[in-house]
């Protein structure tokens, strides 16, 4: 099934987004010299990435996805700077081909795999997921991807593989944010093998039916919709099957604030802010916050993974 003629789920609701896009482009075309206007985004030469061949996925949320602009100009990707619009500004020239992922650890088929080796055998699905940041804002993102588990099985993990560890590219020449020690580079993340094999966990290679914009973690990133966004490691170059729980970047930075699991949980507050409610991006200046759902609303599918685990201690 090709994507060219099929109506994608977001296209039904995209008219207002499309109009907003026109406003946005018109607006950002007006040059503003003053450094005072910290929030005005200068126009960056941006070509939309090419379209991908995708199929529909029946499990998508029917909530309206955020606009392309929301999704691609408000990003936490510290490798390109710590302000939300920095990745949009600084990642436009990031070159993501060729791209190699090193697979290692407790599996029978370790090795270096090209992007094409990783992605081509899989059918790409349009999966619209809720996305909840640990900073108490949220979006709805139409990802393109495939189940991580389908890929991991190809590497034939053995019975010692209890966890899967991931690393982002470390290349300060190409990722200017890595020139300052804001986090311990390279960024690293991890999942239990059960979490990694869960059908909701995907490797994503695009949004809105197009290849992944650089500022969003190109060319290949993790998406775990029931966890806080920072678990979704971007620009992955290493996948390792491990016996022991891997260390993760934000946990190394502030262990009291960011646990290994980092499941979305409205009852366990971050020490510095409440997780009970979230601000939906795109709702406007005067919109109220909305209640945060346990496991970001994916509890029916994933709660069993944590049966018997004290989620207050294992945050």
């Amino acid at each position, binding site marked *: 099934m090709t994507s060219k003629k099929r109506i994608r789920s977001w296209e039904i609701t995209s008219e207002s987004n499309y109009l907003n896009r026109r406003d946005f482009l018109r607006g950002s075309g*007006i040059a503003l010299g003053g450094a005072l206007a910290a929030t005005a985004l200068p126009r960056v030469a941006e070509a939309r990435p090419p379209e991908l061949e995708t199929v529909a996925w029946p499990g998508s949320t029917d909530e309206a996805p955020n606009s392309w602009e929301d999704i691609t100009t408000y990003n936490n990707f510290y490798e390109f700077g710590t302000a939300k*619009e920095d990745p949009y500004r600084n990642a436009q020239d990031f070159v993501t081909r060729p791209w190699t992922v090193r697979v290692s650890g407790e599996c029978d088929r370790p090795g270096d795999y090209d992007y094409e080796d990783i992605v081509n055998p899989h059918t790409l699905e349009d999966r619209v997921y809720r996305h909840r940041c640990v900073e108490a804002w949220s979006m709805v993102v139409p990802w393109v991807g495939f189940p991580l588990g389908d890929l991991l099985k190809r590497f034939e993990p053995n019975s010692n593989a209890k966890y899967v560890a991931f690393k982002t590219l470390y290349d300060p020449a190409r990722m200017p944010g890595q020139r300052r020690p804001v986090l311990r580079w390279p960024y690293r993340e991890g999942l239990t093998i059960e979490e990694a094999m869960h059908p909701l966990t995907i490797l994503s290679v695009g949004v809105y039916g197009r290849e992944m914009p650089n500022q969003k973690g190109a060319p290949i990133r993790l998406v775990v919709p029931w966890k806080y966004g920072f678990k979704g490691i971007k620009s992955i170059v290493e996948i390792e099957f491990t016996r022991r729980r891997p260390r993760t970047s934000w946990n190394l*930075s502030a262990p009291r604030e960011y646990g290994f699991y980092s499941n979305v949980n409205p009852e366990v507050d971050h020490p510095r802010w*409440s997780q009970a409610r979230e601000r939906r991006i795109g709702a406007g200046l005067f919109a109220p916050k909305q209640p945060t759902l346990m496991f970001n609303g994916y509890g029916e599918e994933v709660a069993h993974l944590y049966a018997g685990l004290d989620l207050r201690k294992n945050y």
Partner: protein
Amino acid sequence: MKAKHVRFLKVPVFGLSLVPLAILVVEILGLWGLSLGTNPVEALIHFTGTWGLNFLLITLAVTPLRRLTGQAWLVRFRRMFGLFAFFYLALHFLSYAGIDQRFALGFILEDIAERPYITLGFAAFLMLSALALTSTRDMVRRLGPRWKKLHRLVYPAAILGVWHYYWLVKADLLEPLLYAAGLALLLGMRAWWRWRQRRAAPSSSPA
């Protein structure tokens, strides 16, 4: 500088101090293609907080600047800058309490009690409110020597304000540390001068 010149100069300084507000209004109204960006609530809170801190540091720079340059008239701008600091911080607090929390008192009180950076910020705001309320000429006269003592609260308020910023940042501490360095310089100069003054006149015990 003569008094009438100072009065004349106050007009453009007042106008310049309103520029951040003007930018904010333009961005809220979405004029000329400007906007508060993708997360307008966060942008509003950060913008007003940043300008509150900026004016607080400008206010604290007046006395050292006067001393270094010998231009005594500078002090006549101090109250205006202090009130602009309070003005932007009042907008900061109202943006948080009114627009972010929609005046939900339960959530606001929980934040003040349980989120340390909000506790600090709120304490600083209360202190500066007391200073703003007693900033009139009439209050200066009525409070007499106690006025000066009361208005030394600006030092702990500024420290708590910068600390508030430091504690809210997740990992990139560069900007809060720059504010901390600026504040340390301004307070350090005062401490140094005081120490030298005491050493120079050890016998001048208070009556």
